[in-house]
């Protein structure tokens, strides 16, 4: 086989955010005409890497060679002009503008001083014809009225309008229905064959990468772990590279002592949810899995009393909770750890200690005045049990790594008796060690007859952790999978 031309390569790339090393001494090589898969767990550094390549982040050290020249981008616009286009995981579109206006945003056609809207529609039509991913796309429809799939298509067309030499795609199918995802994959392969377009393809769906990529690079904790070429694709091998373990060893043993029903939500109807019923037993981890926007977060927030619902009931220990509200749920020992810890979890101006004690101040310290000594004592004890890595219990929470911040949020609730812990994607962006600690803590709670509702955006995690899984799609429960029916095929079948 003739050696192909190297279009882009990196040597010893490094990028840190505070104490987190997102990318460490990374070397990769992309040859012209490759579709290179980039896989790894959340937080492995994939997104950081492509943002460096696309000029969105500056690198700390290292070197990028592109078309035989050492380059350093000043901005993403410069990278785009030189032929590197990124299709982001969450489309970066202006919602009030229509598809055509979004595609030509920043390079509008003008007639005198006025915008030439006709021309932009015409050019967009040409583009759609040239790249028929989704020919029925209504180019004059405002983006705000579009489905997730349509938005993704607009984002891709926008990238293609720059005629890129390297197209970088960050989980483009994550929010697409199955048939749209398939036609997208077909188009990508087509583009690659006919126009020799080089691509970097990030996906959590390993089957997809096997289908379209000719090689796959695995990242773990910011490092390049290795590359497989298509003749050596093997799922078990790949997963082992991603998590540095066999899957069976990575997750703690599943529950063997499932007790009575602890918490049930029956026939919940709300703006998003349609007649949703779930329940969790003592000693059980119940998984909720679906695509982004399928309603898992809305469901648990309804149960927790944060979102209103029109009808339905919440029953805890056989007793109906009449007006579910957060303080009522906290009173019953039902706690929620939200998905976005920065937006909904942390108090950035508080110390580690204050962040731990905040949820149970009244019950832990009945006396009128708080004393720092007592607070620190309580917080330190819990921090030790969590295996928290910190320098001083009074240090700012912002100085901790993501994983340790997440442990603080878990610790906050375990200061008092917990009956049901609801965790919404608790391991996003945290390192493997902290992940294992959190898995261990959840299973320990199980062994004390506590129930856990677990939402995850990673299919491997939900398979590894849940004793039972509800799959969701567009606000309804599509299936309930008992332990022996939990596998990737059954889950994917029910969420798409």
């Amino acid at each position, binding site marked *: 086989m003739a050696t192909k031309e190297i279009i882009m390569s990196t040597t010893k790339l490094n990028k840190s955010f505070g104490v987190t090393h997102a990318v460490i001494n990374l070397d990769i090589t992309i040859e012209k005409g490759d579709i290179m898969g980039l896989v790894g767990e959340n937080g492995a550094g994939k997104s950081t890497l492509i943002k460096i390549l696309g000029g969105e982040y500056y690198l700390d050290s290292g070197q990028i060679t592109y078309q035989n020249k050492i380059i350093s981008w000043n901005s993403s616009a410069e990278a785009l002009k030189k032929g590197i286009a990124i299709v982001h995981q969450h489309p970066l579109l202006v919602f009030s503008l229509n598809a055509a206006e979004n595609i030509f945003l920043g390079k509008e056609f003008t007639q005198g001083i006025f915008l030439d809207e006709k021309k932009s529609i015409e050019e967009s039509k040409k583009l759609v014809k040239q790249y028929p991913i989704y020919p029925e796309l209504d180019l004059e429809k405002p983006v705000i009225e579009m489905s997730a799939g349509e938005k993704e298509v607009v984002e891709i067309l926008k990238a293609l309008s720059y005629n890129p030499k390297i197209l970088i795609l960050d989980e483009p199918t994550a929010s697409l229905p199955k048939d749209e995802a398939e036609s997208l994959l077909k188009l990508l392969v087509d583009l690659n064959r006919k126009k020799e377009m080089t691509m970097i393809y990030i996906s959590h769906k390993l089957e997809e990468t096997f289908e379209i990529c000719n090689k796959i690079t695995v990242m773990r904790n910011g490092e390049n772990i290795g590359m497989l070429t298509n003749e050596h694709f093997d799922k078990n091998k790949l997963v082992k590279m991603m998590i540095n373990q066999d899957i069976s060893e990575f997750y703690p043993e599943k529950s063997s002592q499932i007790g009575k029903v602890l918490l049930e939500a029956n026939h919940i109807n709300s703006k998003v949810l349609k007649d949703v019923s779930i329940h969790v037993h003592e000693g059980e981890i119940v998984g909720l899995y679906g695509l982004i926007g399928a309603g898992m977060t809305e469901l648990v927030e309804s149960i927790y009393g944060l979102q209103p619902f029109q009808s339905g009931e919440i029953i805890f220990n056989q007793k109906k909770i009449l007006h579910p509200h957060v303080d009522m749920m906290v009173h019953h020992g039902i706690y929620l750890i939200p998905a976005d810890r920065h937006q909904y979890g*942390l108090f950035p101006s508080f110390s580690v200690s204050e962040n731990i004690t905040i949820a149970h101040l009244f019950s832990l310290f009945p006396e009128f005045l708080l004393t720092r000594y007592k607070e620190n004592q309580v917080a330190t004890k819990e921090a030790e049990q969590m295996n928290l890595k910190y320098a001083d219990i009074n240090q700012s929470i912002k100085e901790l790594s993501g994983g340790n911040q997440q442990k603080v949020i878990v610790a906050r609730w375990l200061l008092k008796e917990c009956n049901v812990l609801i965790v919404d994607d608790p391991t996003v962006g945290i390192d493997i060690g902290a992940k294992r600690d959190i898995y261990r803590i959840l299973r320990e709670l199980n062994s004390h007859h506590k129930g856990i509702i677990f939402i995850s955006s990673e299919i491997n995690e939900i398979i590894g952790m849940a004793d039972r899984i509800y799959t969701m799609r567009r606000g309804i429960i599509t299936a309930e999978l008992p332990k022996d029916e939990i596998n990737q095929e059954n889950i994917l079948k029910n969420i798409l």
Partner: protein
Amino acid sequence: MANNNGILKILKNRELLVMAFLLIIFFSITSNRFLSPSNISNVLMNISVSGILALGLALVMINGDFDLSFGSALGLLNLFILMFVDKGWNVWVMFALAIVGGILWGMLNAILVVQIKIHAFVATIATWTMCRGFIYWINGGKTFYGKYPDFMTIIGRGTVFGYIPISSIIFIGAAIIVFLLANRSKFGRYIYAVGSNADAAEYVGINSKRIRFTSYLLQGLLIGLSTVILSSKLTSGPATAGDGFQMTVIASAFLGATVFKPGLVNIGGSILGILLLSIIENGLIMLGVPFYFKYIVQGLIIIGAVSFISLKNKRSEGPAIL
């Protein structure tokens, strides 16, 4: 070397304290009246009104809210006390009613800002303007003079042991209570929590609306209390009463945010801030500088304090106000 570090550590985040100390030395040298007992007593009396207002504003600002209306509320309540005392109402009843009136004022702001969700700046600019309009309407733009019993001045002008103003004792008492409430009570922790991340507060079961509402009520109570001292001291109702305190008090909050908990408005900082600003104000008068220089200095101090914070700290530490 170790000794050096020790001193630096003590001075860290105490820049304001050092500045106040240096200013006192400076004014003592340049003006021989500055350290006279009567002047000290005068400064202390002034601080008690603005200081109590500063405590109230800090409580509201820790939440991430704001208030611009307290100056005119002070003016209106002052007028209200004096008019009824003139009509023969009991002084103590009027003082109590003024405090109730202050709480009602806080409630009005709270309803607009917390319940109806008008931005605090907009809502309190409106209540401020309206209130000032009422004052002019009631006394026709003139200063109100009325009859009052002699003992009415005891709170505002009275002293114990010769030089310690009774109003200062009230201020110190209020300062201690508010300080403990904010920094050591659970309610206080919740105020800081709401200011730090109101969304996260909801997830741990803190009713952030209730906390913000209560803070406005407490601020109203403190506005009422400072009106009592002001009325007792002035015994007259100028149409502009309260205006002079507005910027001093606002500046104290920003200046206070540079110490103790850098980047965050905090009670200890506000107390220090108001002390420092009052000393500067008085010192300038003692040096014979025209009164309007006070406004220039206050403006510069706000800009200086906020620049200091934004250059020293990274963003998104606490309430968006800084």
